[in-house]
């Protein structure tokens, strides 16, 4: 048990060996996620990959392709379609000392597992006063943009940020995805790792009628082949600016950036990377500097994570604000199939919100 309880982050240097740092490869987000799991399986025999179709088939989105062939059926295995059971078994494995990485095939399928995530995974540490932990990382593709309709497009992140005892991580690039996933697997707490499926193969600017750009043209597709970490709880300022702060995560980081470039507004775009723990210091410093704040997310508006961000910004930066905090989000409807782009908080709505904030 002792080795399980050890905190990775304090037990080793952040990056090992120069070789890990220098060797890079162009990867899309799927390959980066695959690489993170591969690296962790090489380093830690307690890391186990499990989920529906993750083994033989290599995952619906191919995130686990080749891992079973390399690491064997005991460490990369298929489960029945039993989301509650998958999470529950993973919690037990974690409590016993393993470091399971269960995949829930779509975030929309995670609901049967919520009992286990909330009542067991998130709470085991607290109610055993630290005797047992659930160091599991639940990976799951989320978000829309691929015409998945209401059961294959949802963004349920705020259900999990509402739960004390869980961490919620959402990457926006291949480089971040790998570094964050490694940190999540090494973390001794349960982590919900939502992968924006619309940007698995390339960044998406929200201009759905334009040709898809592959990751290879993006700087963040240069991914170290070895082990590296991006700490949980550290936001990334993807564009520095003075006029306004835009808070986004996942797919919406790219959409917001594209709008800013097109509008020529000097916005500071912050990619939150992890919703919980939240890097409130970076947010606070930025909003105090710019005096204006726009929050963008794909999830529905009411009780969405944007509401929490908005409240925090008001609490901490009220006397610095030049305009009301704005939110651009998905509408309070089920995720539509045919009207996907009407629902999606795309460039037009973001552009309007920026104009409104800047007008005051």
């Amino acid at each position: 048990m002792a080795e399980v309880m050890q905190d990775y982050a304090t037990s080793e240097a952040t990056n090992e060996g120069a070789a890990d740092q220098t060797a890079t490869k162009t990867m899309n987000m799927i390959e980066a996620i695959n690489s993170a799991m591969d690296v962790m399986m090489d380093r830690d025999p307690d890391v186990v990959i499990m989920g529906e179709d993750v083994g033989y088939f290599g995952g619906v989105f191919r995130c686990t392709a080749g891992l079973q062939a390399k690491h064997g059926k005991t460490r990369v295995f298929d489960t029945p379609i039993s989301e509650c059971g998958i999470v529950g078994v993973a919690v037990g494995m974690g409590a016993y000392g393993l470091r399971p990485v269960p995949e829930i095939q779509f975030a929309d399928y995670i609901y049967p597992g919520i009992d286990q995530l909330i009542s067991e995974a998130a709470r085991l540490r607290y109610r055993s006063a630290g005797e047992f932990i659930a160091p599991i990382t639940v990976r799951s593709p989320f978000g829309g943009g691929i015409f998945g309709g209401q059961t294959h497009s949802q963004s349920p992140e705020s259900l999990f940020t509402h739960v004390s005892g869980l961490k919620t991580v959402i990457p926006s690039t291949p480089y971040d995805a790998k570094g964050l996933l490694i940190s999540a697997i090494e973390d001794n707490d349960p982590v919900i790792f939502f992968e924006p499926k619309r940007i698995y193969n390339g960044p998406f600017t929200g201009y759905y009628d334009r040709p898809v750009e592959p990751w290879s043209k993006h700087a963040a597709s240069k991914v170290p082949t070895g082990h590296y970490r991006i700490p949980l709880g550290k936001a990334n300022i993807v564009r520095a600016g003075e006029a306004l702060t835009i808070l986004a995560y996942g797919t919406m980081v790219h959409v917001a950036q594209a709008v800013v470039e097109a509008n020529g507004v000097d916005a500071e775009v912050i990619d939150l990377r992890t919703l919980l723990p939240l890097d409130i210091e970076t947010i606070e410093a930025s909003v105090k500097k710019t005096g204006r704040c726009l929050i963008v997310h794909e999830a529905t508006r009411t009780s969405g994570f944007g509401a929490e961000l908005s409240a925090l910004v008001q609490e901490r930066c009220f006397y610095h604000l030049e305009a009301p905090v704005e939110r651009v989000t998905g509408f309070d409807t089920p995720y539509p199939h045919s009207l996907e782009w009407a629902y999606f908080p795309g460039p037009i709505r973001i552009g309007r919100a920026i104009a409104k904030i800047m007008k005051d």
Partner: protein
Amino acid sequence: MVKTPAAKPERKPPAKSVSAVLPEEGSNHPRPRDPQRHEATQDELLHFYKEMLLIRRFEERAGQLYGLGLIGGFCHLYIGQEAVAVGLQSALTPGRDSVITGYRDHGHMLAYGIDPKVIMAELTGRGAGISRGKGGSMHMFSTEHKFYGGHGIVGAQVPLGAGLAFGHKYTEDGGVCMAYFGDGAANQGQVYESFNMAALWKLPIIFVIENNGYAMGTKVSRSSAETEFYRRGDSFRIPGMQVNGMDVLEVRGAAEAALEYVRGGNGPLLMELKTYRYRGHSMSDPAKYRSREEVQNMKDTSDPIEAAKAELLKMGVTEETLKSIDKDIRKTVSEAADFAETSPEPDPSDLYTDVLVEQY
């Protein structure tokens, strides 16, 4: 109501001599051997008697403390079911095998020899409690004894048990997980997800259904289409065993047969322990759903402690010895109660500890 059913119906030998190649019970799955009532030495039975009596007296005192307002919230007493935890856990190897159970968990902890003081102090929510007052009656753990709780959500501990068993198998430590749940929890969907995975992966786990006849206030016949719970694993080819849970030696004998089977690499086994709780589901339950006569009849005819006492007297143990045992136990329980009443409540700063690795 509780009878002593055989684990397997008695069958006449087949007329033709092909029986050797025919699968037993119409399935080609291996089955455990017929359990034999354990032939206990006087010392052994005395030990079981002491453990059962300790649970009984402890629970009686917990009931009193609850009545006095010293225990708050929920408190589920194990009175009547003592033979189950004592008989089963006496057959396990401490430190190798793991145990997990639901919210009626005081007895399972006492059966493991865990100090009654820290258990009682957890019930009164004191800082000296085994979960530092964070868990309460339903949520207690012990790494030392591989006791994994103590879970307040009905049935949610069962997938965790499968995960623990996976841990045993993965680490090849030869351990077996014993996962307890009640007749009520046996109707939860996640239990069957766990059955499927445990059978699929041949996990070393014994699913123990403590059938005390009532899911809170709902009689088994009003909640369950199949009231013979030992058959609940049939669809997963998990063999079942029905055991008289009011006789500690029958329980112990059955546990040995079960462990032999599971340690033999045959995968999971299901045990139904027919038992009875004398008190209400929790302290707030007046138990109006059953007659006073039914309860009295069980106490008069099937009490596990009285039965063990009669057997000990027959073996030549004197009344005096038994009286002095009772006296010692009362003293132990009184000390536990004093400890639980007088030790201080947790510090308010403990509110934020053990939530995540970091504190917020």
